[in-house]
């Protein structure tokens, strides 16, 4: 089958499902659910068929032409698109299945499922996009779906605020992205990605390195917004206000990965600019450390996972920036799998206990939900980078690419971040499986329904076996599989183990204080629990600045422009009143004025 037709099926089936559900099935929840799931299934099958078909020629048609602008619409079928597309379709479908159970009682189910369909369409459209503008369109639509899904429970003020924040912060990043794309179009006259990337005729041959740095950094702004990198990361933890399956799908596995995906997509451009690489590395590593430190003191289960997502995305970016394309993509894919797993597990707990506080979950017998807990532990171990789970392989690749790139300081910091990751991940695990007081015997804790557990089990298996995809992935990406000696893996393994051990020391053992070692340094603890004051700075500086501008300009509008116009009108009317008073009713004055004017005019006429 022509891959383009298949791609159209993959991408647009969810859209059709979405539109049908929204327009005709608002009351018929089951039908809507079936539609979306059916669409999801079709996408999965199609995406895997595409993947099996292997890379093939890019296909595109001209969609819009106006003057200098020519936008093409089409699909790329390289390893990157194919592999990530399959992952997206798969996880989307799993989450949809999971949602059947999770959203069972929600009255607005149709809207929920329809939005998942919308998301699937947008995300898949983005993944296969061949044109930067096409990518941008779907990128924005992904953001839109995210906005609606975060704010799904719009009656909750915190949810709608979180949705707004997510939209705005990603929008700020997108501004940079849009400017970057517009500049690229203006410079090169095109936005066709393969053409831009071409080594002989592409963008790198057209501009100086300085310009290129500017361009890619502008694009990186968009990536920072979407992939929640410092300083645009603050929306992601708040986005946990959305339903948990949504967090699993959008805010850890797929949507936030779109930024990383874009980076990988434009990898050659980034590689052409030393400065850009350094900037990206610095931001990524700082983000990784910062998010890890915050996760160390966070007690909200989903927020811990959210910060870990931020950190892992930073890892991916760092790897990509250091030149490790394979490492970045591998981590992207495997992280999608195990982070989705973690979130689905978290959702399973939350669905059951109706709280996000992991201490509470542990106390109320979270570990008795055996399948879920098994998934959590395996996912956590993968996140911590313990061998032989998926996360181990990918993180190992990431670290290796850093050290291969010669960024030793960064490598060291990344190692530290990996240590912290292991630490806070197992802090979370120990909170749940080793609560600080004995469980009540009669607690009626049972595990979730099969429809919830199914995806969890599937993903658990995938997490365990994830490392195996390294070879095939490298093959499809046309890259070499690197070989690492055991010695070079040792630091990472030791770091992970150290993290787990310290976590056990602080939280797991029976005499643990459960405060963590950061608790010993109040300054740091406050810094971390206030999330490094980033939100406060935003509030104090940007929000206030914009409010101030708005207020000032509002005053300008009311007092100066409107007021000025009103005053002008008043003055005119006042002059009118004064003029009318000339009409004094005294006829002799009338005649006198006439005589004076005529005399003046006569003088003027006579004396010329």
């Amino acid at each position, binding site marked *: 089958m022509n891959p383009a037709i298949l791609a159209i099926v993959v991408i647009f089936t969810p859209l059709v499902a979405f539109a049908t559900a929204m327009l005709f099935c608002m009351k018929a929840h089951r039908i809507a659910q079936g539609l979306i799931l059916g669409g999801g299934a079709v996408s999965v099958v199609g995406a895997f068929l595409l993947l099996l078909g292997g890379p093939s020629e890019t296909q595109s048609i001209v969609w819009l032409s106006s003057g200098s602008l020519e936008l093409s619409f089409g699909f790329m079928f390289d390893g990157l698109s194919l592999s990530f597309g399959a992952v997206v379709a798969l996880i989307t479908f799993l989450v949809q299945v999971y949602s059947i159970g999770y959203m069972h009682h929600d009255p607005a189910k149709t809207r929920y499922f329809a939005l998942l369909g919308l998301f699937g369409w947008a995300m898949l459209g983005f993944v296969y996009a061949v044109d930067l503008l096409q990518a941008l369109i779907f990128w924005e639509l992904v953001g839109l779906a995210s906005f609606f899904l975060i704010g799904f429970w719009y009656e909750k003020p915190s949810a709608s605020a979180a949705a707004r924040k997510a939209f705005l912060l990603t929008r700020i990043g997108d501004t940079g992205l849009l400017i970057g794309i517009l500049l690229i179009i203006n410079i090169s006259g095109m936005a066709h990605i393969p053409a831009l990337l071409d080594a002989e005729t592409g963008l790198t041959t057209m501009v100086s390195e300085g310009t290129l740095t500017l361009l890619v950094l502008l694009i990186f702004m968009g990536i920072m917004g979407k992939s929640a990198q410092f300083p645009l990361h603050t929306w992601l933890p708040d986005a946990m206000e959305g339903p948990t399956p949504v967090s699993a799908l959008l805010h850890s596995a797929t949507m936030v990965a779109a930024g990383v995906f874009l980076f990988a997509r434009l990898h050659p451009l980034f590689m052409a600019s030393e400065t850009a690489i350094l900037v990206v590395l610095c931001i990524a590593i700082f983000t990784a450390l910062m998010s890890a430190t915050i996760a160390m003191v966070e007690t909200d289960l989903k927020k811990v996972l959210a910060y870990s997502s931020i950190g892992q995305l930073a890892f991916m970016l760092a790897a990509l920036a250091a030149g490790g394309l394979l490492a970045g993509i591998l981590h992207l894919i495997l992280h999608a799998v195990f982070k989705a797993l973690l979130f689905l597990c978290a959702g399973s707990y939350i669905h059951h206990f109706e709280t996000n506080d992991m201490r509470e979950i542990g106390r109320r017998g979270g570990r008795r939900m055996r399948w879920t807990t098994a998934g959590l532990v395996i996912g956590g171990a993968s996140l911590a980078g313990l061998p032989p789970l998926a996360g181990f392989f990918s993180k190992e690749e990431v670290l290796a690419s850093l050290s291969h790139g010669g960024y030793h300081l960064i490598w060291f910091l990344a190692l530290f971040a990996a240590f912290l990751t292991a630490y806070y991940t197992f802090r979370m695990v120990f909170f749940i499986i080793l609560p600080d007081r004995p469980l009540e015997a009669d607690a009626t804790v049972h595990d979730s329904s099969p429809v919830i557990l199914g995806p969890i089990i599937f993903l658990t298996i995938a997490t365990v076996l994830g490392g195996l995809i390294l070879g095939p992935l490298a093959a499809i990406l046309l890259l070499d599989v690197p070989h690492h000696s055991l010695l070079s893996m040792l630091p990472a393994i030791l770091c992970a183990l150290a993290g787990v051990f310290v976590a056990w020391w602080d939280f797991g053992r029976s005499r643990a204080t459960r405060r963590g070692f950061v608790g010993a340094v109040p300054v740091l603890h406050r810094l971390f629990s206030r999330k490094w004051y980033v939100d406060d700075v935003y509030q104090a500086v940007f929000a206030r600045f914009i409010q101030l501008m708005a207020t000032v300009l509002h005053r300008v509008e009311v007092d100066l422009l409107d007021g000025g116009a009103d005053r002008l009108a008043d003055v005119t009317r006042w002059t009118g009143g004064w003029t*009318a*008073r000339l*009409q*004094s*009713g*005294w*006829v*002799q004055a009338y*005649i*006198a004025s006439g*005589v004076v004017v005529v005399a003046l005019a006569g003088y003027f006429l006579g004396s010329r």
Partner: protein
Amino acid sequence: MSLSAFLLVSLVLFSAGLVAIMSRRNLVTILVGIELMLNAASINFMAFNYYTAVDPVVGQIIVLVIIGLAAAEVAIFLSILMVLYRARHDVDVEEIREIRG
């Protein structure tokens, strides 16, 4: 006497009429001022008639017409003044200032 002398006289007369109109309070006096202005015009016509006109008859006719018109004018104005007086018992121009603004 030259033409300019006549013109000067008429100008004086005309100005006197205007001054009367603008300064007197009694409407009847003001009417007299208007008559002065008309007469100034008549003098002009006659003077020009005498000194420069091609056909001397024209000026004379004009003056006769003016006299006639002036009479009619006076008649109407006085009758209006009658009404005014009946309504207000006054013909002081500075007092009738109700219509204004």
